[in-house]
């Protein structure tokens, strides 16, 4: 007699995320930097901002720090970036 065994796994649901078009050029744009709070993440991001300004003509940057790497950026940070930035650099890593 065969035994039927049931699958314990789940496939994650797809979620549609709307992206704005990528800018064709960074010239004159303001860059937001999301510091994920890991050691030296601020140093890395500032170097990236420096390159974006020097080599690609970005105008300015603003960096804000998350309270923890494991949580999303706060609504306040997102609101500030929406108002004050044209592009945002974010990432997670150790």
């Amino acid at each position, binding site marked *: 007699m*065969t*035994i*039927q*065994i*049931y*699958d*314990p*796994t*789940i496939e*994650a*649901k*797809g*979620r549609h995320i709307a992206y704005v078009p990528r800018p064709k050029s960074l010239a004159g744009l303001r860059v937001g930097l999301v510091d994920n709070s890991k*050691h030296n993440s601020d140093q890395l991001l500032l170097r990236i901002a420096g390159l974006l300004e020097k080599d690609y003509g970005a105008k300015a940057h603003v960096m804000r720090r998350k*309270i*923890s*790497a*494991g*949580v999303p950026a706060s609504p306040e940070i997102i609101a500030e970036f929406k108002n004050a930035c044209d592009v945002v650099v974010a990432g997670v890593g*150790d």
Partner: protein
Amino acid sequence: MELKSRHYAARDADEAMELCAAKGWTDGLPVVPPTESRISAMLAAAGLEPGLEIAFIENRQVSVTAEKVAINAVLAGCKPEYMPVVVAAVEALADPLYGYHGPATSTGGSAVFMVVNGPIARELDINCGDNLFGPGWRANATIGRAVRLTMRNTIGTLPGILDRSSLGHGGKYSFCIAENEAQSPWPPLHVARGFRREQNAVTIMAALAPHQYSNGLSNTPEGILTTACANMRICAGTGRHPQYALVFAGEHMATMAKAGWTREDVQRYCFEHTRISAAELKRINLLDGAVGPGDETDMHTLVETPQDFLVIAAGGNAGVQSAYIPGWGSKSGSQSVTKEIRRS
């Protein structure tokens, strides 16, 4: 009740077990094949319809249903009566304060430490005594395992993929205890966290492995806690303010009771005596930079507030051992959460 999950045919129990392993549904140990009758018994014991959502994990966009929790509880070897505890713990995983994504994914390698309180702990024979964190009790071994298998199989918390623990620890198989409410000098943990004594509740905390310390010299709380704090202070350097569980076993528990120390007394003492200077943090490379003026008196606390020490009475009556359990990462990333265990 009608189950929605896909199912597979196996010729016999041996083949069913091998199929579970081959499909990657296990933690490496053998599992109980999840058959319809076993899954239905699990759901019935908790009075749950299979389609009921137990948890929604935002980061993963995953809805964990009662059916999936039941299948994983069967795999883990749970008795049906354990199911309400497993369900409450899975519910807790989705609490925003627990912040599932961080502790589940981090290289920091935490497990889900679970403390069960209330009459159900005794009814289910969840161990609160000898060999507290070791093997030997079915409830302890399988309830925690069911939670971990649910994380693996439904939320995708797979080692090397969405579980990037560098090291992990044995608690990731199962990390479930009860509190020794009968002998505790303090109100039960869940009462301290807002529940009534007769309610059943489970507290979860993203936690590293237990660190055991011995003190057979002291017959005062201050003496025992001096040892505890010295051990913790060395590990305090992250400066990230996780929560800590402090587990006091029999002889140390008795010393606290005899001296009339409350849970709050223990928390205050440990808060004050685990402070560490910025200078020391710099010397042991846990704070960046050279030791400067003022660093010797710039004191950092281990936790954010005294209440971030979860004081728990549990462990064998013989011996002069207790343990502290560091929480994962930071309290801002993950906090301990207590949920009521509901039975039908």
